[in-house]
């Protein structure tokens, strides 16, 4: 499997009045060609900052203090603004979170969709407008031909998000960065947008990094999942491995706080406590203060990644050979049992086999 994007040891700090906020603390991951990688985590865990750094769209007070982002043999972090502008909207494009504010209110949508084509000189004006219309049809805007001259305020939220997606895919990018593209939408529209993205991925063969805090959405779209906490990736694996056989206590907490059909208790589970202050992050595992399975070493040393399978890694001391065996929460044990059953019956084995094969 070909790696299209390789992020290595990324470190990003933000200068604030209070001091340096260590937003991204040594993050590494890669994106394979044609796959969808979901990055999940709660607000402030560094998901958005990570993908924005790929587009070099960080705020002015952010500075990158290390690492590299390899795209097609070039380090994006070492590129000049000119070189990055050539990549933006062309090879890599981005879908923004809020469709209500992401479109220019004073420009007809046809022109907005055609703009990336014109900027990158891919085609002349007439062809660009024709392509824009075609893509608007592709994302499901009815009567696209007559609506090209309409303005954003004449569309509903769901339609606007489709237009935002049309802008992102109009140049058939190799990588699509989706920053919580469904968060601002209601649930039925969410499902439609996810189906649309899967469909488009199939049609134009693009790779997607999908950021969300909604695990339900992840199950529907992702091939692989990376879980972020306090500026670090703490566990990653295939979608089945993360959902059915998670190893990090934070991932357990995340999955536990997601309501399922057989959630019987009256209250939803919430992970106790709050994430650490990244002005002065803890020396050990950042999740330790909230972790019911915490050990002495969690407070002292940062856990390295322990290998679970060829595709599944988790940064928790619980996986150390010397660590005591702990019982994960009941719901997680149920998931693991379900997983073993499914594996045995071969229902999800094929997906897993494919993944393993890809890494071989």
């Amino acid at each position: 499997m070909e790696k299209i994007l390789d992020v290595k040891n990324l470190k990003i700090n933000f200068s604030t009045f209070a001091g340096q906020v260590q937003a991204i603390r040594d993050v590494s991951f890669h994106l394979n060609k044609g796959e969808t990688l979901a990055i999940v985590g709660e607000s402030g865990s560094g998901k958005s900052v990570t993908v924005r750094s790929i587009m070099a769209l960080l705020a002015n007070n952010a500075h990158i203090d290390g690492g590299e982002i390899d795209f097609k043999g070039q380090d994006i972090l070492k590129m000049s603004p000119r070189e990055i502008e050539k990549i933006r909207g062309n090879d890599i494009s981005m879908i923004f979170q809020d469709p209500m504010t992401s479109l220019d209110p004073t420009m007809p949508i046809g022109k907005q969709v055609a703009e990336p084509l014109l900027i990158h000189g891919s085609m002349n004006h007439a062809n660009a407008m024709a392509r824009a219309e075609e893509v608007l049809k592709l994302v499901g805007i009815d009567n696209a031909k007559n609506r090209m001259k309409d303005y954003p305020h004449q569309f509903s939220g769901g339609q606007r998000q489709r237009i935002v997606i049309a802008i992102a895919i109009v140049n058939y990018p190799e990588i699509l960065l989706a920053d919580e593209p469904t968060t601002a939408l209601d649930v039925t529209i969410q499902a439609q947008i996810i189906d649309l993205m899967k469909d488009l991925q199939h049609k134009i063969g693009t790779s997607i990094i999908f950021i969300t805090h909604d695990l339900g959405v992840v199950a529907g779209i992702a091939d692989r999942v990376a879980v972020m906490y306090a500026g670090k990736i703490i566990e990653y694996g295939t979608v089945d491995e993360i959902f059915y056989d998670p190893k990090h206590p934070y991932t357990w907490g995340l999955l536990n706080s997601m309501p399922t059909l057989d959630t019987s208790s009256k209250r939803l589970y919430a992970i106790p406590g709050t994430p650490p202050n990244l002005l002065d992050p803890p020396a050990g595992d950042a999740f330790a203060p909230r972790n019911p399975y915490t050990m002495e070493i969690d407070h002292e040393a940062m856990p390295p990644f322990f290998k679970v399978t060829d595709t599944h890694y988790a940064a928790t001391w619980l996986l150390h050979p010397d660590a005591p065996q702990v019982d994960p929460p009941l719901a997680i044990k149920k998931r693991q049992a379900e997983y073993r059953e499914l594996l045995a019956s071969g229902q999800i084995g094929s997906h897993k086999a494919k993944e393993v094969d890809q890494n071989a």
Partner: protein
Amino acid sequence: MGKYILKRVGYMVLTMFIIATATFFLMKLMPGSPYANQAKMTTEQINIMNHQYGLDKPAYQQYWIYLVGLLHGDFGTSFQFNNQPVSYLIASRIGPSMQIGVQAIILGTLLGILLGAIAAIRKNTWVDTVATFFAIIGRSIPNFVFAVLLQFFLAFKLRIFPIALWEGFSSSILPTIALAMAPLATTARFMRTEMVDVLNSDYIELARAKGNTPWQTVAKHALRNSLIPVVTIIGPMAVDLMVGSMVVENIFSIPGIGDQFVKSITTNDYPTIMGLTLLYSFMLVVVILIVDILYGLIDPRIRLSGSEGSN
């Protein structure tokens, strides 16, 4: 759109009628009479004069006669300026006033937009500080001070421009600059504030994500969206200019209309006061109409009622 403009013109006529009525009766409340040397005139002479100008009739009759005259395009005859018809008086003097007024508002808004935009793009740098400084200066120093300073340095000391009078385009430059300072400063301030907001918006980030350079982003997306509040203040600024022009015209000895307005009030020259008030009100309602139409052109969300489309 046509229907909308028609409706607006109807309202304009109504506005003008109300202004004419209010001015007429307010004017009648002013003390004094049109006769400068009344003390030397006999009662008989005054009566003859009053009769000749129709001032002996009750106010409501005078008002009616004036309105009927207006409908026939007759603004009456000036008491002071050689008994010229008011319409002729205005026509012969409106040219210079209009010219420096229009030049000043165009120069002021365009430079103001530019200055404000640059200040916003270079926010919190020395460029921003310098631009803000100029905006404060322009806003806080009255235009007649600028007029005198410009006259002293550029005309008297350096002799680049004519010092006064009205002899071709070059004589309009200094008064235009003096008048343009206030709109320039106001526009720059509004533009900077709005542009800072716009540049922080999501669609600007999306524009950058499309591969636009910073300047392309400003030209294609930020400028137009920042213009909306600027358009709103063009109306009030135009009023400022009209008032300001009277003093500036005086300083540069320009045969404009501002000077006459002031004189007509101090001498109770009723027909001239009425004529000029109506003229200024007319210009103002036209400016407001233009601003409203511009609004719709710049921002598609502001739909003019009566035109096609939603909202």
